[in-house]
């Protein structure tokens, strides 16, 4: 079963922000939602094939056995007038974290396409503008999912990040971002256009909870996770930044099976299949 959205295409040269009576027919949506949206409906049988996931992080180690082939890898830096410059990334992973995230996504959605966009390595000072440039570049590539296990505390970047998050949302690119568990304001995880993720302590990679008291919207596995790391190896890690790629992987599987879903619909499917909502009796 597919849920299809047909946007009304106005004949007028200006966008129509209201719904005219004769346009109602044009936005009729398939109404056959299952009685209950189940995990079986949402992702059973999907390996993530067809979904493109971007890892916006420290780079990804090429040919790591737990990550496999990448669709591509670029390092983003700032060019003239702070325009984003993306060049093929020959350095791999500067920390190990991006490789860990890629491995987690791969473990859940084995056939999805993975793309590394490295935004770290320019030093602390250049990190904010580089993060923005990398995110802007990634949104322009039309990835289905962008995994962001990172955040900034600089309020000067909040406005632009907010704008980028909304741009992604309307272009059907889902931003999955790590929530902060420290008493500071940080972005972009607090924006409602993104899917924000914190950690729970259970060990099942497909166990995730919807949080009825946002801003953190979902909790996924983030404690004592065995992850891919530098040198082809594996280590055991904890942090919200490892919970995030679990949700990215689940999103990839759902989108592999239901590529027509918008970020709004995808978030609803996550809600309906969350362990505390639909998955447990």
């Amino acid at each position, binding site marked *: 079963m597919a849920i299809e959205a047909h946007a009304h295409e106005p004949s007028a040269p200006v966008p129509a922000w209201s719904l005219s009576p004769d346009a109602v027919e044009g936005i009729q949506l398939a109404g056959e939602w299952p009685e209950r949206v189940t995990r079986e409906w949402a992702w059973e049988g999907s390996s993530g094939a067809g979904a493109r996931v971007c890892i916006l992080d420290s780079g990804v180690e090429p040919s790591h056995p737990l990550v496999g082939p990448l669709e591509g890898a670029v390092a983003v830096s700032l060019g003239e007038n702070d325009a984003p410059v993306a060049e093929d990334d020959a350095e791999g992973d500067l920390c190990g*974290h991006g490789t860990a995230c890629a491995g987690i996504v791969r473990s859940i959605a084995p056939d999805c396409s993975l793309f590394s966009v490295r935004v770290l*390595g320019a030093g*602390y000072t250049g990190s904010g503008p580089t993060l923005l440039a990398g995110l802007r570049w990634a949104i322009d590539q039309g990835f289905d999912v962008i995994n962001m296990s990172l955040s900034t505390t600089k*309020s000067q970047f909040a406005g632009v990040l907010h704008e980028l998050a909304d741009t992604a949302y309307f272009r059907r690119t889902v931003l999955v971002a790590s929530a902060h568990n*420290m008493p500071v304001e940080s972005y972009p995880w607090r924006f409602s256009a993104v899917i924000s993720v914190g950690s729970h302590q259970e060990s099942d990679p497909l166990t995730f909870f919807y949080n009825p008291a946002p801003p953190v919207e979902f909790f996924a596995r983030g404690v004592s996770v065995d992850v891919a790391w530098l040198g082809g190896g*594996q*280590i055991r890690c*904890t942090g919200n930044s490892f919970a995030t790629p679990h949700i990215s992987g689940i999103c990839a599987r759902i989108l592999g099976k239901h590529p027509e879903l918008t970020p709004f619909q995808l978030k609803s499917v996550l809600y309906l299949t969350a362990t505390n909502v639909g998955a447990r009796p």
Partner: protein
Amino acid sequence: MDKETFRSAVAAGVFASEEAHRSLLQSIVEVARAMFAARASSIVLLDEASDELVFEAVAGEGSDTLIGTRFPSSKGISGWVLVTRQPLVIEDVSADPRHARDVAEGTGYVPKGLMTVPLLLEERALGVLSVLDRQTQFTLEEMDLLGLFANQAAIALDLLQRTRRARSALDEDGSEDVAVVARLAAALDGLEGPKREAGLRLLSALEDVLAT
């Protein structure tokens, strides 16, 4: 308060307080080490001018060799934590050959486990607090505790940075008159009893004489 008076007051504080703030940072890493029954704990501070991280306080392993050691601000685990503002716990660092080699070259000691948390104050990331080879069972509550503790460490680091900036401003000022007032204030601060009272009377008289 006019500019000169303000500067002198700052100078008096600066000369006496850097050591106190260093002690505060040291006590924070000592307590962090004790709290988690860890083999070592450290604070690295971001030096924005050189975009490097510098070891400021170390308890346990490495305490006699690491202070002042520098490394790039966006590489490795501490760099990732600083730049992304996300805490990170690794249970077997030694499995990461690159990290193990880097650390071993600096300290002669390769930790197995590592809890690393950014030191955040308002919008700024000031540095990173690490706890190495803890013996407690890891839980999310433990992470929250480390986060609270990091908040305290961030405030201490901020105080230390302010002190250094004030001192640097005084040094750059170059005028001996400010320096002499600072030395006098520091000397007076170190006096007790009748000597301190006499010193205060003398300075008060000097203030009357110099008043226009």
